[in-house]
């Protein structure tokens, strides 16, 4: 049995007809302890791909293997024990307390008539500690900021006890400080040995913490590999349609970064 998350030949279409597939033939592998960053312009199906991976949508073709087990053959609760999904979620209609939401992550471990036990509550508390939101435990979720809400959802996914975590644009709508806070937490989870796949709007985030990057565009993975190899001037221009410089910054930053330009055609395109 191979640990980690493996995707083989995954295709999906909403109509069921693969001629108008959202994406097709996606192969990728996420190793335990690493962060895989999924890039791509808005509307290319990053979220759809992550939902297929999490078992929320059923792919037309291909397989999703969690530690070598095909998830289409597993019960939803068994998938949820191994794979935590952090959605792009609106806040709840009801002012549930943060601790009540985090403990919901224990659902796959409980039968239909059960309520969380003292042990479940302790696990939820540990998750909140890991993510650094213990102080928010008694806060109604409707009073949280965007970053706090995102951390709550990550803590809930962590309470599921998964070895794989799928995050759908966890930093969208957040300011710079909160973005880094989330990325630090994600990095911490990878250091604990979780295999993490994360969709992002920001190529820079891949330089910050990803060991592997894929670009999803026009229904295919068009590039895949290390951030240095994938995030290049040309690839960024082809993906986002704006001229971009990717430069190495020393001076205490010590990484590459993307610099998009407002001007078009800084360099002539290859084609």
């Amino acid at each position, binding site marked *: 049995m191979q640990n980690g998350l493996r995707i083989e030949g995954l295709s999906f279409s909403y109509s069921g007809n693969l001629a108008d597939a959202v994406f097709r033939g996606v192969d990728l592998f996420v190793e335990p302890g690493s962060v895989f960053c999924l890039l791509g312009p808005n509307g290319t199906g990053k979220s759809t791909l992550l*939902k297929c991976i*999490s*078992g*929320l949508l059923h792919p037309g073709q291909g397989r999703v293997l969690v530690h070598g087990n095909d998830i289409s053959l597993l*019960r*939803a*609760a*068994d*998938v*949820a*024990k191994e794979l935590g*999904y952090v*959605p792009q*979620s609106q806040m*709840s*209609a*009801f*002012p*549930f*307390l943060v601790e*009540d*939401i985090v403990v*919901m*992550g224990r*659902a*796959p471990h*409980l039968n*239909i*008539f*059960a*309520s*969380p036990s003292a042990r479940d509550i302790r696990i939820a508390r540990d998750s909140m500690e890991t993510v650094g939101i213990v102080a928010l435990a*008694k*806060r*109604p979720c*409707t*009073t949280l900021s965007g970053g706090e809400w995102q951390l709550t959802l990550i803590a809930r996914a962590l309470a*599921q006890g998964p070895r794989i975590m799928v995050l759908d644009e966890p930093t969208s709508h957040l300011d710079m400080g909160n973005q880094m806070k989330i990325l630090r937490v994600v990095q911490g989870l990878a250091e604990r040995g979780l295999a993490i796949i994360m969709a992002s709007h920001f190529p820079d985030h891949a330089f910050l913490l990803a060991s592997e990057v894929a670009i999803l565009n026009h229904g295919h993975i068009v590039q895949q590999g290390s951030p240095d190899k994938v995030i290049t001037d040309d690839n960024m221009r082809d993906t986002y349609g704006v001229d971009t410089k990717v430069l190495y910054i020393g001076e205490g930053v010590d990484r590459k970064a993307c610099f998009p330009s407002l001007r078009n055609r800084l360099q002539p395109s290859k084609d």
Partner: protein
Amino acid sequence: MQSNKETGIHLNPVKLQVFLVLLLLGVSVAALMAGQLRIHPYEVVRILLSGIFPIEKTWSPTLESVLFDVRLPRLLAGLLVGAGLSVSGAAFQGLFRNPLVSPHILGVSAGAGLGAALAILFFGKIFMVQLFSFLFGLLAVLMTYSLSRVYRTTPVLMLVLSGMIVGALFSAATSLLKYIADPVNQMPSIVFWMLGSLNNASNKDMIIAGPVMLAGITVLLLIRWRINLLAMGEEEARSLGIDTGRIRAVIIVCATIIAASAVSISGIIGWIGLVIPHIGRILVGPDNKKLLPVATLIGAIYLVVVDTIARTAIESEIPIGILTAIVGAPIFAYLLRKNRSGW
């Protein structure tokens, strides 16, 4: 705590439940003693116990008959209808992710109304009215549910809209029946039935409907923590490994059976299923694990209190559907203004 001010009081649920159970007992004894024939509370308890233990009968047979054949079934009906409507209202509010939903949203009362009107028109017997209102209540929800099925799933929005469609259809048919009904006897019967009353509750009703309603209430209470997950939304619940379709069906079946039974016993009593869960939320917060037991108890207490007022306040009986709102609205307004409940 600062945050508690923003979302209700968050009382200790265990202490609150003990208090509510005691209050429920007190209110029940009061309901049994009150009426044209006042019975002393000590006597009430003794007569009740004589049903189980051999106690020497020092009271008149009339007293015993009033208690066992009139007040006790009515009390039980009030307890069950109040508890049932409240708990199914709370469950539906979680299921539909909307605090403005009542157990009637899927058309159960519109269906029951038509069934009752038909039975009044064609049979005129109270038993037939109860049977028809129950069956038509179920029929209406069944229609709503099948109408909302698309691609083997039932989106929440489709359910609500289907409920509106079915409700409109059944209400229109009821109006038509009222229009063609005999205006001297039948039409007032239909109208009074719709205003709600526990006057017709008999021991026979309680033996048939009681276990059914109790079963529905019990199941909802048992799965109450899962309702929290549904309240987070379909996709999130599924990502937590929940079979949302199945649990939604369980909630709808239970709430429908409860509401249809309640309507068949007592006519249409609005307000309770909508507002009691809110009062519960103000007291213990939105966590359904704490909310559902509290809402069940408050609903039972509330309907017994209101029904006792309805039958003792003036010479003739006040329709309870009217009174639930007149008594409840100011209480709710007060609580709402005092404690913002966070939505």
